[in-house]
């Protein structure tokens, strides 16, 4: 073996003689990419100039030997637009003090009052490590952090999974804790105090915080080569400041149902009507059951899931989600998606509060705590490149329709459009590649 470099070619000739005239393509082999990147650009846009969100998400997955996996995530969101503040719409114009307490904003007659000072950038980071532990266990742990102008989230999670039954059954337990800090513009308002004139920040607190614990217990079962089912139970407990500091509730006339005017302070701009900052309990406990079935057949995947959630704010929700991945050929697929969501309102949800009655301990007019149904309909198209990288484009339409139960209406509010319905478009481009 002195004259190297000729050995491989001599061997090739000898092999050719041995195997005959077999037509051979040159070998193409390489170590699997150690890094995989999943990048997505997502646009979420609500109709009527409400919230617009543009976000870029990058997930980097590093595969080490022996199924040790490091996942790093980065997300950047830019939010603009306006969001309903909870105040009751009516026939006349309304004026509000902005969250900062420095200026006033007006809403024309008959329009749902919005806060259009909504502008934020959010940066989110995550890191997760996953590895086998012994022959049957998989353990993973991670940390999450996100920061926006008035909000800081820090979280950590740990998950332990064990395989049973020839790895056809996996039982997993996940624990996540988070500590979030709010530092709202102008300070966090004291619940159920009145929105004041400009520069009056007497009822504002400094930063507030909340702690969240999530526990998920799940069982995944492979039924046969085509079918996989999963059932998860999750428990979530939030403790602390759970108000939305920018949401208010209108005080309305018990007969007319219209907002009660507020006497102006001479020489000072301020709210035109009486509004109270919302008040939510400082605890929330959620239980949910999630079930999912995935059916695979000849490249087609039917993904059905249902979630039931119930919390001690009296919100019950049901979510049904159906996706069907339909290959067009080996390289392309389309995936229709339909999702239906419905929830009951929180027990303290009040679109308005009647004047001259006892104030309840908790009240919020936040439409997200109201009763509504939402439907998402979308289509995703994906295609793979020769080298196995994957592009996809997704377009979805979201519509939420809410209603306010008669018993929550005051005076002659019946028949008015109180609940801010919502239409939104979701468009996403993603690219997955290895390096």
């Amino acid at each position, binding site marked *: 073996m*002195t004259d190297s470099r000729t050995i*491989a070619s001599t061997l090739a000739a*000898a092999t050719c003689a*041995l195997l005959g005239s077999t037509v051979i*393509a040159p070998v193409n082999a390489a170590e699997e990419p150690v890094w995989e990147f999943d990048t997505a650009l997502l646009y979420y846009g609500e109709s009527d100039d409400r919230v617009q969100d543009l976000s870029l998400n990058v997930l980097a997955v590093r595969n080490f030997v*022996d199924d040790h996996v490091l996942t790093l995530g980065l997300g950047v969101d830019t939010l603009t637009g306006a969001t309903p503040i909870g105040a009751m719409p009516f026939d006349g114009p309304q004026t509000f003090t902005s969250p900062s307490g420095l200026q006033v904003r007006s809403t024309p007659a008959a329009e749902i009052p919005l806060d259009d000072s909504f502008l934020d950038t959010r940066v989110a980071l995550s890191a997760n490590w996953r590895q*086998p532990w*012994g022959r049957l266990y998989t353990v993973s742990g991670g940390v999450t952090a996100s920061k926006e102008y008035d909000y800081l989230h820090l979280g950590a999670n740990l998950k332990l999974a064990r395989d049973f039954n020839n790895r056809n059954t996996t039982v997993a337990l996940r624990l996540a804790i988070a500590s979030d800090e709010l530092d709202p513009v102008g300070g966090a308002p004291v619940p159920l105090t009145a929105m004041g004139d400009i520069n009056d920040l007497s009822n504002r607190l400094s930063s507030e915080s909340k702690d969240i614990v999530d526990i998920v217990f799940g069982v995944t079962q492979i039924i046969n080569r085509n079918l996989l089912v999963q059932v998860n139970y999750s428990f979530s407990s939030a403790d602390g400041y759970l108000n939305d500091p920018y949401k208010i509730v209108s005080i309305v006339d018990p007969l007319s149902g219209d907002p009660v005017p507020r006497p102006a302070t001479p020489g000072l701009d301020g709210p035109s009507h009486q509004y109270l900052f919302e008040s939510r309990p400082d605890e929330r406990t959620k239980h949910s059951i999630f079930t999912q079935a995935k059916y695979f057949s000849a490249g087609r995947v039917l993904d059905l899931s249902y979630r039931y959630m119930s919390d001690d704010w009296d919100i019950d929700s049901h979510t049904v989600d159906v996706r069907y991945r339909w290959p067009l050929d080996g390289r392309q697929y389309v995936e229709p998606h339909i999702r239906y969501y419905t929830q009951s309102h929180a027990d303290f949800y009040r679109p308005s509060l009647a004047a001259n009655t006892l104030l309840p301990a908790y009240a919020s007019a936040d439409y997200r705590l109201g009763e509504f149904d939402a439907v998402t309909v979308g289509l995703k198209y994906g295609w793979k490149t*020769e080298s*196995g990288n994957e592009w996809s484009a997704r377009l979805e339409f979201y519509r939420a329709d809410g209603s306010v139960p008669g018993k929550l209406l005051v005076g002659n509010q019946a028949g008015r459009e109180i609940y801010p319905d919502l239409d939104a478009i979701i468009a996403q481009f993603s690219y997955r590649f290895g390096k």
Partner: protein
Amino acid sequence: MGSPCEILVGTDHKDDATKLAEIAAQEAWRVEDKFSRYLPGNIIHRINHSVGEAVAVDSETSELLDFASSLFDISEGRFDITSGVLREVWNFDGGDKIPDDATVAQVLRRVGWQKARWEAPLLQLQDGMQIDFGGIGKEYAVDRAAALLAEHSEVPCLVNFGGDLYATPPPEGFAGWQVGVDAVGVSGTRNLKKIRLRNGALATSGDARRFLLKDGRRFSHILDPRSGWPIEDAPRAITVAADTCTQAGMLATLAMLKGADAEAFLTTERVTFWAERQARAMSVP
């Protein structure tokens, strides 16, 4: 083949897959029956029991002997199909029984392809010599089976006989066949490396479970037929990618026979390979 054999076929039609699997299995059994040194009555048995007489061989055996002869030449005697008798004194069971020099020298007299007379179709071995296609047979069977499958069908398939494998391009939409190269040392552990094979062959040579330990020295089961002693300082395992499984297997074996220079040899030959030298740390129990 003394190891699990599998065929992966990229088709939606079960009948096609079954048919192709049968073709490959038949070929594997045919090669094994014909060339196994353990089966009485086959050509290898006749040669190994020829007591110095010339044996006439068929054309397939003749081609394998030509191939083995070429390998003997290009490896300068390191690759030798007559070296199997050394196993009479070397027992690689993980123990510490090392034969003495005299015992090895005694057996070595019956080793050496240069001592055989090979003029197709006649092979004449000296009395007591034996041949063994163990170092070629599995890879040859993979290439043979793959060639037969290609004659019958164009569906993507991967032929894997005990970790030595050949694949045609994967089904549309897939970047390649993902091949896990087993961790050195412990069977049943998770994969050490994942190799994306679009087409062509991978073969691994190693001493994962076959070695001797004596006074802290680790003796590889790969013997140098020139000295009768194990190769020293060879990597624990080498996986080679090549156009055919036979080439991949031979390059991996030739590299192992180079001992400490294994990687340098493959690099010079511009071969795609993965070498493993370190004993791998065990996973946390």
